């Protein structure tokens, strides 16, 4: 292949490094209004009265709204969310009113003048508490909410989804087991911390058209959710997404858009803008859900896991419109990349009075694998088997079966395992630190992930040929730093046999770029990539259709190479493809055909929903991507500080489209995983975020970067474009447990809760002594 598999320069590189890329907040509007939000000081409270009269009288205020103004609920999978609280405020910081004013300062001042009377209600701050029968109900009308048919809210409870998986006979396996294990873990909330905070401007025109400029990963999903909430036909609502400075999931759904739109509707013609501060981002955008997870394991005497029972209690926060799908995805992936015959899993999505949970890189996999992979090491230690061997024994192989009963034809797990173990030199002890108070250890962890999306999630791509033989590729899978623009250009360039520089990619405008379900789920290279390939093939076919007239032979005698149409039997006879850009001019100067446009529409084939009672499906997902991380750490026995010295990454990517971008993804993912393992936690105290800024929410700096080694395994995905499958999220998934396993290896102390902060580590080391 000419272009696929090469490290072509990112299409957005120059714009990004020169600071000239335009992000949502950069756009300048004429006569803008600025929005600000009045937020609830309580985690759970009944709203008795809101008096906005003083705010309305403030000079420069254009309009003030409360939840009463637009009561319709929104939600991607479960319509449980009001953008402005209606009746009760369900988390600390939930919007209760909003203002649009001539300046940000006036809007802020106006918010202070809004008077709200509350009656505080008993609240839920833990998912296990929220599941208790006497827990205060956060959504008493849950059973009346509109919900996608694959989710099962439980009437009269805080459980917005209960996914049940029953494969084989777990009870029998536990009776027959040589040994059984029972381990519990807790994974706290973390935040995505994209470098660009959320921003949105909405402009409602007097003729009824609404335009939204938002920092968003998924313009079409956002358009649909907002259209349904605010009753717009889809041809009257337009979502534009410019450059996005990192999403990691938090820009996938709707967050602040729904606050700005009703303000804009009251001020026709005036753009209304709201940009979150970093502190807003930590508290009011999405967070990764907290998770209590209990894993019971039944093992035979050879270390083969014969049964697995899992209970997952997710802390979904005040609204779980998106979170329910994470809970389901975690159920599908519940045992990791291991072939286990008997499984019983219950995954619960629980409302709490915490910030709203949402998608985060890994979509549940990062959280559950922190438990799965540590549990494996714990089982291995008890059984006297090496952590490497227990993974060799149980790790999935081609033809193996997933938790839902899907036969996994392509499974590179074992190759990744051997390669990662070799790279981290797992069989050798660590080099001594030279200081007896600094101990070292190594850890391995595997993981897998599948795109969790509707069974019929769709993508489409349009490629237009310009008169000079260059191309404009239109798609709506959004580049937020992961590199999808470049990947689409490479796939199109490969198919059209031209240089990548001939292809310009335009995205993110629901009026002008074609439909894409969402840019999430590690699905873009696969789904949008397939649509791109289909569009390029369609365009190629159309070119050849016309070329056969020009070149005096049948279409089947023609092919593309280096931007020329050539004849199979006389390859020296060639015509540049630009000749056909606008169709073809015949010798008499009349024209035929017309401008060349290739269209590709793609839907994941043969994905089947899981059964409501057993959770089983022979193919609930398009593919599983799997692999292994290794880590070497040094633990300071005096300060409890953990330093990661080295990490290795080996995943089965199917086919790497761009090696350098792959490496960037894998390295970034390891460092992000390290951040969650060592420092990151949204510290919540009775619903209040105690560390809503970088002062006390620490993410890694360059100084913390360990040695990073990235290798890859390529077992082609049969249905993927050029054999590729998605990798964006999975490369983060086993990082945190690999570090935790290495710490346990170094110290003999097991940490079942992340992050491994110095005070926690030191306290545990002292307790062990």
């Amino acid at each position, binding site marked *: 292949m000419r272009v696929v598999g090469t490290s072509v320069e990112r299409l957005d590189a120059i714009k990004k490094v020169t600071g000239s890329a335009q992000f949502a907040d950069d756009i300048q509007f004429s006569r803008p209004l600025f929005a600000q939000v009045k937020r609830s000081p309580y985690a759970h409270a009944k709203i008795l009265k809101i008096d906005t009269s003083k705010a309305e009288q403030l000079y420069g205020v254009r309009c003030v709204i409360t939840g009463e103004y637009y009561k319709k609920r929104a939600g991607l999978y479960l319509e449980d969310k009001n953008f402005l609280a209606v009746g009760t405020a369900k988390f600390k910081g939930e919007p209760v009113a909003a203002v649009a004013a001539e300046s940000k300062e006036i809007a802020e001042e106006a918010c202070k003048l809004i008077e709200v009377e509350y009656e505080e209600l008993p609240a839920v701050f833990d998912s296990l508490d929220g599941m208790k029968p006497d827990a205060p109900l956060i959504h008493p009308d849950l059973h009346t909410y509109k919900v996608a048919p694959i989710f099962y809210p439980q009437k009269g409870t805080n459980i917005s989804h209960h996914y049940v998986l029953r494969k084989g006979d777990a009870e029998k396996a536990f009776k027959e087991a040589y040994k059984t294990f029972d381990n519990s873990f807790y994974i706290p909330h973390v935040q995505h911390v994209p470098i660009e905070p959320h921003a949105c401007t909405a402009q409602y025109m007097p003729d009824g058209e609404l335009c939204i400029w938002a920092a968003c990963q998924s313009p079409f999903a956002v358009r649909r959710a907002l259209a349904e909430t605010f009753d717009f036909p889809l041809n009257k609502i337009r979502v534009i997404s410019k450059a996005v400075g990192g999403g990691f999931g938090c820009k996938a759904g709707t967050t602040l858009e729904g606050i700005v739109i009703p303000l804009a509707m009251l001020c026709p013609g005036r753009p209304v803008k709201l940009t979150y501060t970093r502190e807003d981002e930590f508290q009011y955008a999405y967070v990764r859900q907290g998770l209590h997870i209990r894993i019971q394991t039944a093992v035979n005497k050879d270390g083969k896991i014969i049964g697995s029972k899992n209970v997952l209690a997710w802390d979904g926060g005040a609204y779980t419109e998106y979170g329910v799908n994470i809970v389901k995805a975690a159920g599908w992936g519940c045992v990791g990349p291991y072939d286990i015959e008997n499984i019983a899993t219950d995954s619960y999505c629980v409302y709490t009075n915490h910030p709203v949970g949402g998608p985060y890189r890994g979509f549940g996999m990062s959280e559950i694998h922190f438990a799965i992979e540590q549990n494996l090491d714990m089982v291995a230690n008890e059984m006297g088997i090496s952590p490497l061997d227990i993974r060799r024994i149980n790790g999935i192989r081609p033809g193996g079966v997933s938790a839902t009963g899907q036969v996994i034809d392509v499974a590179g797990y074992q190759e990744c395992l051997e390669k990662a173990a070799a790279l981290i030199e797992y069989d050798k002890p660590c080099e001594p630190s030279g200081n007896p108070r600094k101990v070292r250890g190594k850890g391995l962890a595997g993981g897998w992930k599948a795109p969790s999306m509707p069974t019929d999630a769709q993508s489409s791509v349009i490629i237009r040929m310009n008169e000079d033989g260059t191309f404009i590729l239109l798609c709506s899978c959004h580049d937020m730093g992961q590199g999808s623009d470049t990947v689409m250009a490479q796939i199109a360039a490969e198919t059209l046999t031209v240089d990548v520089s001939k292809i310009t990619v335009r995205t993110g405008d629901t009026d002008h770029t074609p439909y894409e379900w969402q840019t999430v789920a590690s699905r873009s290279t696969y789904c949008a990539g397939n649509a791109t390939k289909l569009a390029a093939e369609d365009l190629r076919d159309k070119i050849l259709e016309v070329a056969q007239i020009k070149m005096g032979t049948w279409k089947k005698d023609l092919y593309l190479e280096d931007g020329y149409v050539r004849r199979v039997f006389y390859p020296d006879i060639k015509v540049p493809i630009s000749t056909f850009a606008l169709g073809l001019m015949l010798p008499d100067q009349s024209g035929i055909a017309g401008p060349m446009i290739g269209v590709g529409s793609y839907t994941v084939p043969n994905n089947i929903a899981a059964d409501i009672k057993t959770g089983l499906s022979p193919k609930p997902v398009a593919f599983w991507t799997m692999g292994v991380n290794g880590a070497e750490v040094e633990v300071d026995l*005096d*300060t*409890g500080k953990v330093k990661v010295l080295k990490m290795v990454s080996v995943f089965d990517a199917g086919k790497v489209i761009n090696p350098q971008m792959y490496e960037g993804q894998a390295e970034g993912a390891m460092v992000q995983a390290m951040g969650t393992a060592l*420092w990151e936690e949204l*510290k919540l105290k009775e619903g209040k975020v*105690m*560390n809503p800024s970088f*002062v*006390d929410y*620490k993410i*890694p*700096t360059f*100084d*913390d970067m360990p040695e990073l080694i990235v290798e890859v395994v390529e077992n082609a995905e049969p249905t993927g474009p050029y054999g590729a499958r998605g990798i964006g999220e999975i490369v983060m998934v086993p990082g945190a447990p690999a570090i935790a396993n290495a710490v346990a290896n170094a110290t003999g102390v097991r940490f079942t809760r992340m992050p491994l*902060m*110095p*005070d926690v580590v*030191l*306290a545990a080391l*002292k307790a062990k002594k």
Partner: protein
Amino acid sequence: MKDFQYLLPQTLEEAVRLKEEYDKAAVFMAGATDIVVRMRDYLLTPEYVIDLKKIPGLDGITFSKEEGLHIGCLATMNEIAGNEDVRKYYPTLAAAAESVGSRQVRNRATCVGNIVNASPLADTATPLYCYDAVLEILGPNGKREIPITEFILFVRKVALERGELVTGIRVPYREAEGEFRKIARRDQVDLSTVCGTVLKFGDEYHIAMGSVAPTPLRLKKTEELLAGKKLTKELIDEAAELAPTEVNPIDDVRASKQYRLDMVSYIVRDVLTKLA
């Protein structure tokens, strides 16, 4: 941020006069790395901000063995950390200055600002406590000096009278061995969970700890225990056990109280062991 009037005096006298006039409604600004953050969060809402940066002669760092070190109130953390005399004669102060925030912050932040801000975890405080540094103060009634240990009174409270400002810090010169230690969650760009300095002047010891009480502290009992004695393992153990009894830290989002006690003990033990 609340609106304020920005004042730019050209002389110290003018600065004092303005501050005397506006008193609590005004705040002095040097690097602004503390006050801007606090103003943005409405923790500080001055009506007047008096910028000292146009006043000449306040950014010097001078040293002689006789006069000791003098740090002007506009000398930045990076200037202090990079100053050859400071590095040679006050390495703990250089290390402390270099541990503050990020390089960009250190380009603006001043040592005097760090002290006047009076945070319990001010990184440059503990070496200055150990060296018995003295703050030079100018006010409507002229100049006066005050030892740093008497200057910081409580969290963000200092012994400045109406109209007064700190023009510089004088650090007496004494030949010393020892170390500054910063225990933080992350090695770069982080606040101290605990910071501390242990200095040995001949057979006299000065120990100061930060982020373990409302102000930085000198550990007088531990210093007395060590004074005049040879550092044996037993003595070091005793000092490491005594030191945490002299501090009173809290639990917060950065660490547990117990961890801070452990770190005080560790810093004392580790530096003394290196000095033994």
